[in-house]
């Protein structure tokens, strides 16, 4: 604990010192040369500070490495082990970045310590420019040791944006302290000789920092979208909360900056005694305040660097509602209200913009426009609002896989069927005595609830309905299994329309992933075929399926040539199934000996009437993106001849559309 605090303090010092150095060198370049006594004194003071900062930078860098050594091995004594530190430096990306950066920072420290007197303008510019270059590179490279480095794909862009963010922060935040010092010195009566210099410097810094702040905001938004991605993660994860805190500190800085720029800056050149000097002193303290807030932001940033990014954490939704389009339950007239409301709101937005720029009766126009906007939203949004729960945006930690669905199916039969019915249509034997009719879970609307909603109801129950929570009877993993099962059931409801004819270019039904093995062979997953081959999944029963299997076996070569593989799963579990199939017909495609039970339990749900009588023979054609595209049973003629099947495969081969690959997680 104290170790972590120390490590984080070291990082904070490190980043703070780096920002200060970059900002100071940038500011010195920006302000230009002067031989006024006060300015020279100010510069000398800054130089002394840069020496300290360089020392702190190196020391805290070393501490960060030693902290990382302890983190990596999980043993606090390794913080002092040179061998571990060397291994971290030599064999990890963090280490490589660390070495590179500290090489540059050593050069920077050397430059600052060994500086001779500058004789010419060239020397003057070269020294400051080099300080900015080395310090800036050292700061920017930090991006490659943080969260941005792990973004995939697009890691380079993410890290590049992060580096730019750091640099812009360096120039702007780091320049505040030198500016405050200068203004304070020049605001004194004795420092009057530096006043013109300070006014000019403040003006040019104001220009540069405006650009830098815009860059900070733009790259910050980019970073946030990389690391957080959606509103749920912003409002519902620790990382998101830290970002909100960071923004919360950023807003007062912006407000201060605006006051400085619009009120105080123009006053600087006013009459010295009454206007100029007081304004300068006030500006000095405001700028100092800004940089203090900036230091606090850096603290938050350090915390964010050790917090799992929002995109990887499970959000805990804080609001009792959310907006969903389309809403899970059809609300009469929602579409019309949305259309009208959004148009009204748009008028409001246009009015706001126009009012702001026109300047004519600005207050009135803006006020009316804002009211119109609110009214428009008030019309459009309420029908879209649905109840939400803390777990609404949780993603299932258990992938959408046949094994999980099979487990869920089993749990459903023991815990839910009494009320919701054996076929999930809400007609179980216990349904009659309940305050409300149990929901029909095979209805497509169930699929429009988020997985997190279902999980919440399963955990806590639905108040007043007679359905109690299962949090104490089913483990968390079991509840997610049931959620996966419910998703399949609701999808199966829609799958009734599936036929043996592929609907061109319209994948919509996700095929649950499954894992299987043939004898002692390595286990394979449906996902392994992703992007490469089509899969014909055959659920079969002996002896009825024997002729069909023979037909498929005879055509196996041509099926393979056309990019399709066959996986056959016995409906009876598959004990000694290969022996039972026997020598003829000669079947060489995978016949599942391990995993068939789960595959059949999950995939038989996609067959109409599967609940009442388990299927004897059914075939599913799964495309390269992992979607179920066609279903065939022997009572349909279509694939009775192999040519029918080959035609559908050919159809899938010709598809050029690219839909996103099927997700293994329920959303």
């Amino acid at each position, binding site marked *: 604990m104290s170790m972590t605090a120390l490590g984080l303090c070291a990082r904070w010092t490190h980043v703070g010192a780096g920002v200060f150095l970059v900002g100071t060198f940038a500011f010195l370049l920006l302000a230009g040369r002067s031989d006024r006594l006060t300015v020279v004194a100010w510069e000398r003071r800054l130089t002394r500070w840069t020496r300290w900062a360089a020392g702190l930078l190196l020391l805290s860098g070393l501490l960060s490495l030693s902290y990382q050594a302890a983190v990596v091995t999980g043993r606090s004594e390794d913080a002092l082990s040179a061998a571990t530190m060397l291994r971290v430096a030599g064999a990890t990306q963090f280490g490589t970045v660390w070495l590179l950066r500290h090489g540059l920072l050593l050069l920077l420290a050397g*430059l600052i310590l060994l500086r001779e007197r500058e004789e010419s303008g*060239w020397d003057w510019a*070269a*020294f400051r420019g080099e300080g900015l270059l080395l310090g800036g590179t050292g700061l920017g490279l930090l991006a490659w040791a943080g969260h941005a480095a792990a973004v995939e794909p697009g890691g380079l862009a993410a890290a590049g944006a992060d580096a730019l963010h750091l640099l812009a922060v360096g120039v702007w935040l780091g320049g505040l302290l030198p500016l405050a010092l200068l203004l304070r010195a020049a605001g004194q009566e004795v420092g009057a000789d530096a006043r013109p210099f300070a006014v000019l410097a403040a003006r040019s810094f104001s220009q540069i920092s405006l650009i830098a702040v815009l860059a900070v905001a733009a790259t910050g938004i980019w970073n946030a979208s990389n690391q957080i991605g959606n509103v749920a993660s912003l409002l519902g994860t620790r990382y998101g909360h830290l970002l909100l805190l960071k923004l919360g500190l950023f807003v007062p800085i912006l407000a201060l900056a605006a006051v400085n720029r619009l009120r105080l800056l123009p006053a600087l050149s006013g009459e010295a005694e009454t206007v100029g000097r007081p304004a300068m002193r006030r500006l000095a303290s405001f700028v100092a305040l800004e940089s203090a807030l900036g230091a606090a932001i850096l603290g938050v940033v350090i915390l964010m660097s050790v917090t799992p990014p929002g995109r990887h954490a499970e959000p805990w939704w804080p609001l009792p509602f959310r907006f969903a389009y389309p809403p899970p339950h059809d609300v009469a007239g929602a579409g019309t209200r949305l259309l009208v409301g959004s148009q009204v709101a748009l008028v409001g937005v246009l009015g706001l913009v126009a009012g702001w720029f026109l300047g004519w009766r600005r207050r009135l126009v803006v006020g009316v426009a804002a009211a119109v906007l609110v009214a428009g939203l008030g019309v459009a949004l309420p029908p879209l609002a649905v109840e939400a729960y803390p777990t609404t945006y949780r993603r299932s930690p258990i992938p959408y896989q046949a094994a999980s669905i099979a487990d869920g199916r089993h749990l459903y039969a023991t815990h839910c069927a009494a009320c919701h019915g054996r076929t999930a249509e809400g007609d179980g034997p216990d349904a009659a005595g309940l305050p409300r009719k149990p929901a029909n879970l095979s209805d497509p609307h169930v699929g429009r609830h988020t997985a997190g909603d279902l999980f919440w109801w399963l955990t806590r129950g639905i108040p007043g309905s007679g359905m109690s929570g299962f949090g104490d009877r089913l483990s968390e993993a079991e509840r997610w299994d049931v959620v996966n099962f419910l998703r399949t059931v609701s999808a199966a409801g829609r799958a009734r329309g599936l036929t043996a004819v592929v609907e061109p270019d319209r994948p919509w039904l996700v095929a649950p992933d499954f894992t299987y093995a*043939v004898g002692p*062979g390595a286990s394979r997953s449906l996902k392994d075929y992703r992007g490469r081959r089509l899969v014909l999944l055959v659920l079969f029963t002996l002896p009825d399926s024997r002729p069909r299997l023979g037909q498929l076996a005879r055509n196996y070569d041509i099926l393979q040539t056309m990019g399709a593989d066959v996986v056959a799963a016995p409906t009876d579990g598959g004990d000694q199934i290969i022996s039972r199939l026997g020598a003829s017909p000669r079947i060489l495609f995978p016949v599942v000996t391990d995993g068939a039970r789960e595959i059949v339990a999950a995939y038989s749900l996609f067959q109409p009437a599967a609940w009442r009588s388990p299927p004897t023979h059914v075939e599913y054609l799964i495309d390269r993106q992992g979607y179920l595209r066609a279903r065939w049973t022997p009572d349909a003629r279509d694939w009775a001849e192999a040519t029918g099947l080959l035609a559908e495969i050919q159809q899938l081969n010709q598809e050029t559309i690219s839909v996103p690959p099927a997700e293994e997680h329920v959303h």
Partner: protein
Amino acid sequence: MRLWKAIALLNLALGVGLLIGYLWWGREASRLRQETTLTIQAGAAALEEREWAVRGVVRSVIPEINVLVVTHEDIPGFMPSMTMGFRAANPKLYAGVQVGDLIRFTLKGVPPNVTIVAITREGKS
């Protein structure tokens, strides 16, 4: 020496270092790529005789050409798990072997020319 000249030299050195590092990195990457292809080829085309004990399930027996088709586990350094036909050293080896039998067999030879030289039955699948 004048400060700015020293700094210019320093930057020159840093630039050259960057360039060298970049080139070295590129060379290292292509060397690694080459090495992987080489090891893969070496694994497949080693010119010495090797021997493996492999488990598999018999999918078909084709006495006409003296071949046994098996779905086998990974064969380290030779091939991953798949369904594949292997020649038997002599027909007596597979006398009594039936489709669906779980077997442990010995493969021997110079890849890719390997033959089954021994078979033991372990059960049914």
